[in-house]
């Protein structure tokens, strides 16, 4: 079955510290992988995505993620966290165009808190 696992429900880091949010997926075909961020009371904003090619992808707001096929992982990283990064982060996997219906399978999210 297709699934996305985000093992950490809640993470707290100090401002300026590095961050890594974990994401593992189970998907039969070659996946499209996404990270979205949701600030309190807001909709989801795309941070970055991986389709093919370089396994290290850069996104907005200084985030990056690395696709590791052997580990079925797509972890999100940021070298120095800012207080404004406090939000909930969702990993998602989707199908290639022309495959299935384009709907995404989401993980349950990781809530990030930032200490001053």
């Amino acid at each position, binding site marked *: 079955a297709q699934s996305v696992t985000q093992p950490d429900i809640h993470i707290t880091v100090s401002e300026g510290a590095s961050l890594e949010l974990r994401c593992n997926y189970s998907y039969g075909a070659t996946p*499209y992988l*996404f990270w*979205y961020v949701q600030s309190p009371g*807001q*909709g*989801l*904003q*795309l941070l970055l*995505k991986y*389709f093919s090619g370089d396994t290290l992808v850069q996104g907005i707001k200084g985030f990056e993620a690395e696709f590791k096929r052997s580990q079925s992982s797509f972890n999100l990283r940021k070298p120095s966290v800012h207080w404004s990064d406090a939000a909930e982060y*969702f990993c998602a996997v*989707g199908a*290639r*165009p022309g495959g299935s*219906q*384009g*709907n*995404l399978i*989401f*993980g*349950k*999210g990781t809530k990030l808190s930032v200490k001053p």
Partner: protein
Amino acid sequence: DAGITQSPRYKITETGRQVTLMCHQTWSHSYMFWYRQDLGHGLRLIYYSAAADITDKGEVPDGYVVSRSKTENFPLTLESATRSQTSVYFCATLDRGPNTQYFGPGTRLTVL
């Protein structure tokens, strides 16, 4: 303004009432989606639509009805609301070029 709008943003209703949540897009994307977001469950797909007059069920369709007579609109109707349908509802569209979904701001629905 371009993008996705959802209305209302907040809604309180009572058990048994019919409620319709509206979603409108200005991009003319073919695919549109409805998700619900609940604590501990992340986002779950309710229904999606590949084009006008083409809709299909997602993971949690029970108790919901959708229609899509025009490409730009994708309303979601709760025919007889239940407390378990208290949730935040997100509409999304798919840009097939980059295969990326874009989300609306959400509707927070409370069923008393």
